[in-house]
């Protein structure tokens, strides 16, 4: 009898979508499982040393960074999203997309730009000294320590929260907000009592992305000399040459992250955030007088600090070194970066859509799959790199008889020296970026149209193509842009998994900055920023056409 019921359940649930989701989950889990297996290996002396003397400090710094950045980015992202979605004020339409631009500047570029700009020889102190005869105390403007890192992370990562929350607020029904107003609540109370709880999935989605960025960061923390678990992993690997202990550190970090992630999801799953059925766009309220000026200034200052000032500084540096750095090899760099990012993004989006669609069934199995495919974002790049490398070497060993039968020689390394490895690395790392955006889109649309289509005789795939896909187009575009830009900016995976002689803009920038050639790094930095800006412009154009 149980077998019959199981057969029926499989018949209802199981289809090609499940098979693809399962395959995707396995591809992502394999390297992660490899890392977990290190826990069961015998620890060495280094590990005892790390655990006894260093781990406490690493953990404390990591937690402080995560909490402070999480709080500040949520505050900045949500308040800006609410201002833009619900109010009209001078230059609001410009800020609507302008506030996405800080995301175009990778944090490792932002930190060296700000530190150099505000340093003793930087433009700020030099101008004050030479033109105003004013000597500034060094500690006032220096970007250093945890406060410096939080400043950089907040300014350049808040668009994750801003973009997702704004999209959610703009498209949801206004009836809740109007009801709250009719019930006599003031704007601030409406914001706290209605908007914040309703937007919680979007805010949490954006903040989780920010937290994983911080946890996986190496560029900012190593540049500012902050010891976190991620920098510890690098140091253990590169300075102690102890891959085993590095993997052990990563494995324990993953256990903590997975625990927090499951807890958050479980808490979120108990409450549903249904939108009202008829979705009308939010009609912005005009802010007059001081309120309008205050809103303009708030958005303006964030835009200046998060984009315009560092961008102009990079242009100024680029002018100094343009003739030296700009040559044909830079076009190759640009092409290679776009090429690898495009392939990876498309793969990520295809699987994201499939898994997110499967997850609409809210079964425990789909819940598990969604967690598996999004785990990669919480794992620092170098750890994914070593996991992927190990899997690919095993694959090459496994495929060796086939290689030799087609004349490729005895036991060559074909896959593990190819670009496929880097693409798989990106795929694992950035799956959550695409998936989260699409999951929010599906949550917004609900299941009624899908059910109506099924009742009219269309199967799951046709329903998806004809009904779901057009309705989640907006989320798909935002998912594409965020993922594409992320990959263009990504550093550690590209450094470790790229094939021989394959450079991306990020690896080239890192190379220059690491060699203290800050001015030379500006051109490749600007190119990364240009790719990101172009994506934002395309995003805007498509969005406008969609609305029309």
């Amino acid at each position, binding site marked *: 009898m149980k077998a*019959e019921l199981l057969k029926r*359940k499989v018949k*209802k649930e199981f289809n090609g979508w499940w098979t693809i989701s399962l395959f995707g989950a396995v591809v992502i889990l394999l390297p992660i499982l490899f890392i977990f297996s290190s826990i069961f290996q015998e620890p060495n002396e280094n590990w005892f040393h790390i655990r006894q003397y260093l781990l406490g400090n690493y953990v404390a710094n990591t937690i402080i960074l995560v909490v402070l950045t999480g709080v500040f980015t949520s505050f900045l992202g949500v308040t800006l999203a609410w201002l833009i979605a619900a109010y009209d004020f001078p230059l609001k339409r410009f800020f609507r997309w302008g506030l996405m631009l800080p995301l175009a500047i990778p944090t490792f570029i932002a930190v060296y730009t700000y530190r150099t700009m505000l340093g003793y020889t930087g433009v700020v102190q030099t101008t004050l000294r030479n033109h105003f005869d004013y000597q500034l105390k060094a500690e006032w403007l220096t970007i250093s320590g945890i406060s410096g890192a939080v400043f950089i992370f907040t300014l350049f990562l808040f668009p994750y929260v801003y973009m997702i929350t704004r999209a959610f607020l703009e498209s949801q029904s206004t009836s809740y907000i109007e009801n709250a107003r009719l019930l006599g609540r003031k704007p601030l109370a409406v914001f706290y009592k209605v908007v914040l709880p309703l937007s919680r999935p979007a805010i949490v989605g954006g903040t989780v992305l920010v937290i994983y960025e911080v946890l996986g960061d190496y560029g900012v923390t190593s540049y500012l000399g902050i010891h976190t678990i991620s920098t510890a992993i690098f140091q253990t690997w590169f300075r102690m040459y102890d891959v085993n202990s590095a993997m052990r550190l990563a494995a324990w970090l993953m256990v903590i992250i997975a625990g927090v992630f499951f807890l958050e999801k479980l808490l979120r799953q108990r409450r549903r955030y249904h939108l009202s059925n008829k979705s009308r766009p939010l009609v912005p309220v005009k802010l007059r007088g001081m309120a309008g000026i205050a809103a303009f200034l708030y958005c303006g200052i964030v835009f200046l600090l998060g984009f315009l000032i560092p961008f102009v500084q990079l242009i100024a540096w680029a002018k100094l070194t343009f003739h030296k750095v700009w040559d044909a090899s830079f076009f190759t760099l640009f092409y290679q970066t776009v090429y690898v990012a495009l392939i990876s993004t498309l793969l990520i989006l295809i699987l994201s859509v499939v898994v997110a669609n499967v997850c609409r069934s809210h079964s425990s199995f789909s819940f598990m799959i969604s967690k598996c495919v999004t785990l990669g974002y919480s794992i620092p790049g170098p750890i994914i790199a070593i996991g992927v490398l190990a899997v690919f070497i095993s694959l090459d060993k496994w495929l060796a008889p086939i290689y030799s039968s087609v004349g490729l020689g005895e036991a060559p390394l074909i896959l593990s020296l190819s670009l496929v490895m880097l693409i798989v690395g990106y795929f694992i790392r950035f799956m959550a970026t695409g998936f989260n955006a699409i999951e929010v889109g599906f949550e917004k649309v609900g299941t009624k149209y899908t*059910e*109506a289509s*099924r*009742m*009219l005789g269309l*199967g799951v795939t*046709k329903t998806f193509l004809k009904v779901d896909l057009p309705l989640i187009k907006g989320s798909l575009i935002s998912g594409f842009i965020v993922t594409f830009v992320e990959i263009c900016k990504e550093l550690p995976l590209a450094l470790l998994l790229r094939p021989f002689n394959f450079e991306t803009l990020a690896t080239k920038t890192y190379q220059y900055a690491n060699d203290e050639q800050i001015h030379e790094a500006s051109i490749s930095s600007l190119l990364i920023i240009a790719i990101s800006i172009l994506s934002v412009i395309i995003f805007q154009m498509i969005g406008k056409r969609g609305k029309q």
Partner: protein
Amino acid sequence: MSIVEIEGLTFSFSRKEIPIINNFSFSMEKGEVVGILGQSGSGKSTLLRLISGLEMPMKGTIKIAGTTVVSEGVFIHPEERGVGMVFQDYALFPHMTVKDNILFGLSRLPRKQRKSRVDEMLELVQMESFEKRYPHELSGGQQQRIALARALAPKPNILLMDEPFSNLDADLKESIREELGLILKKADMTCIMVTHDRKDVEAICDYSIVVGQSNVPNDLNGDKIHTMK
């Protein structure tokens, strides 16, 4: 022959909860219009979702037009059951025109017949001049009629309607009720309609099932069939 036969149907949202539908049995004949009355949370809409295949029962058998669509070991997907449904909020596809919404369910029909079927349906609901409009350009009553036309277009064995009048104002409700009754009769459609308003049943249905009035408030039971007409 019964068009719908339900035997020992039991459903619960989770194993830990008391079944919202418990050992329910029922059958209806072709051309009948049956109303399901009951309060919110009594399992009315869930019964429709079980018949349509959008939910799977814990126990029981459902047959539609002589074919077992769900039983132990059998599950036929919603799109293969030949069931039409009008949703509470109509669920008209917002990115499609009225015509495309109605065409949507006609993919199995030869291409040449589709257009004439759309025209036929628009004529049935008296909305001929609206085929190029989008759902948001229609009033509530018009949306409801298009939702009905869309559900009837593929000629389903049975039509399920979930609170079809809940989004309409009182005046409109009166006239639409009459119209709906006429359309169903004209189309010779077998229909189950969920409602919480007894007037809906009196105006349209041949008889009704009242749910949620026994000692076990949330149990549906075939014995509680009351003939209204």
